């Protein structure tokens, strides 16, 4: 049947990545062409784990945006210290329940409110870093793969060097030189070390695409290198770039939290999950106030877990043949 054929070509086009399929004319109502984006979206929608993860991420995003609402409902400001009602007589944090749903921290601040505010930093860094990293990586990968020769050698060597310097150690060094961390520093460090993997993937793809006939055709029509790279080649690697970007978000969130945990990320008193976990460890505080360690850890874990499952679903949606990271 023709319908099956169209569907099959649509999928085939997606897998080999020959760009968007044009919409079928209105007349042939039954045989409706579906763009690779539409196909990917539909496949993603059928993936139950991915949909649940997307919902969880949505909830986290809403919590982050509505963080002030948490503050006003509880009546506890994000950096407000409740030294009388928030701390017990012996100076230790008060536990779960009562006025503080998730307990307080060492300074009598509301853990729930701080977790909600902490989501802002995590999501911001995760998304922004991933976008920047992927952009730099895609551009350099395109250039290295298409232009070849000197550009390829230079980019290749820089990739070697970035892969040889342990990124966390470099972050430590940079924080020391800069005299403390900041959100900009965190994003810079993560992007500086993240792009090389993206560049390697894109470069590999471009190497095979540039030998195709349509690239030769473009060249013979007089298209310049930049035009060929960004108009003709780029649309064919964009699916992979998106997949990588979605898997990069949880990685960036973990890295951001790690930098904060090492006190070289976002500086206090900004509410941040990594920072909270660090504070919980100070003086073995988690031993008397487990909630102070466990709740920020859970927030972090649920977020990265949701993003990883969703990212895996996105990968599967764009390229069903690829081996999934997680079934």
């Amino acid at each position: 049947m023709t319908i099956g054929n169209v569907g099959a070509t649509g999928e085939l086009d997606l897998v080999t990545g020959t760009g968007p399929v044009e919409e079928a004319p209105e007349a042939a109502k039954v045989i409706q062409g579906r763009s690779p984006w539409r196909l990917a979206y539909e496949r993603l929608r059928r993936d139950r784990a991915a949909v649940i993860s997307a919902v969880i991420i949505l909830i986290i995003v809403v919590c982050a945006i509505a963080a002030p609402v948490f503050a006003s409902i509880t009546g506890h400001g994000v950096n407000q210290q409740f030294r009388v009602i928030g701390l017990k007589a012996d100076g230790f944090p008060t536990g779960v329940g009562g006025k503080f749903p998730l307990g307080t921290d060492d300074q009598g601040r509301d853990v729930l409110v701080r977790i909600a505010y902490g989501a802002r930093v995590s999501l911001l860094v995760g998304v922004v870093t991933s976008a920047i990293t992927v952009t730099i990586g895609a551009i350099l990968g395109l250039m290295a793969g298409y232009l070849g020769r000197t550009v390829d050698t230079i980019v290749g060597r820089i990739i070697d060097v970035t892969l040889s310097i342990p990124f966390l150690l470099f972050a430590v060094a940079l924080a020391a030189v800069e005299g403390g961390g900041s959100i900009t520093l965190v994003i810079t460090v993560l992007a500086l070390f993240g792009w090389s993997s993206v560049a390697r993937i894109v470069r590999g793809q471009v190497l095979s695409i540039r030998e195709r006939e349509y690239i030769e055709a473009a060249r013979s029509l007089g298209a310049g290198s930049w035009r060929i790279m960004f108009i003709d080649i780029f649309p064919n690697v964009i699916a992979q770039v998106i997949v990588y970007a979605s898997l990069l978000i949880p990685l960036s969130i973990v890295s951001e939290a790690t930098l904060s945990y090492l006190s070289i990320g976002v500086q206090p008193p900004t509410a941040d999950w990594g920072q909270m976990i660090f504070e919980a460890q100070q003086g073995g505080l988690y031993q008397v106030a487990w909630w102070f360690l466990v709740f920020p850890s859970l927030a972090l874990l649920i977020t990265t877990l949701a993003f990883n499952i969703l990212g895996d679903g996105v990968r599967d949606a764009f390229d069903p043949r690829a081996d999934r990271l997680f079934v």
Partner: protein
Amino acid sequence: MGRFLVRRILQGLLVMWLVTIAAFCLFFIDPSGPMSVARRIGGRQATTQQLHRIIHDLGLNQPLYKQYWHFLWGAPGRPGLLQGGLGRDYYFGEPVTHILYQAAPITFSLAIGASVLWLAMGLASGILSAVRPRSFLDRFFTTIALFFYSMPTFVLGLLLLLIFYFDFTTKLHLAWFPAAGYVAFSHNPWEWVHHLILPWMTLAVVSAAAYTRLSRSSMLDVLGEDYIRTARAKGLTERRVVLRHGLRAALTPIVTQFGIDLAVLIGGAIVTEQVFSMQGLGFEAVQAINNQDLPVILGIVIVASAAVVIANIVVDIIYAVLDPRVRLN
């Protein structure tokens, strides 16, 4: 093989050289002049007088190419990198190499033990999953892998501390695991292992998760090959087919990935040392930020990068042994 080795070592040297340039630029170039460079080197408590001495001693007023030469080769009375010198630590008043000598064995113990565990856990679970795909065991390992893959190292470390150290000791009265610290292997091998079990687990489990998936898919690919069918047709036992014939070919992508992840291992070591208060290289580096004590950090960056480069060469050699094709191109 000889030619392959030489080329690989030369590549490694080139990367190392680029690392020294990157490190030099980061630490010794500052638009606001030599005074601010000296302030980084001198430590938090340095006086203006000391800073001027540092500028004089290290020649921070000289042109950059001269400074770089001094950094790389050394100046009279001050051996550079190529002579094994990493400069002087002004904060503690001793050569940086002394500090590194004390810290390096701790990080090394941590990294070696963790990577053995990590590969063992990743490979074993991956192979078991691949031998019976979609079985209960496969799904079980997949879930576990996804869980730990999403787990930040420090969260796992602290949760292990909370459960295995704190809860075990106070609630169950089982003092099985110490909270922190490090005992040298030469001092007491048993205590060495005892103190390192939780840090090893922390570092290994998080990284093993990705290897479970990697070795599963790699093993599944290999088990579909014709020669595996031949091996089975010869009447070999399944164990021999999988572990002798399959594993060798399945290992190559894992070895490559392991080479890439070595730099990540050092990063994980920094976090793990922080969680368990082990005074290894990473711990010293983080400590040095608070003291504004850059010579130590510079030394650790160079040493750790060198370790990664050397380990990568070793990995490539193993790769060449496993897969003879790479020697040729």
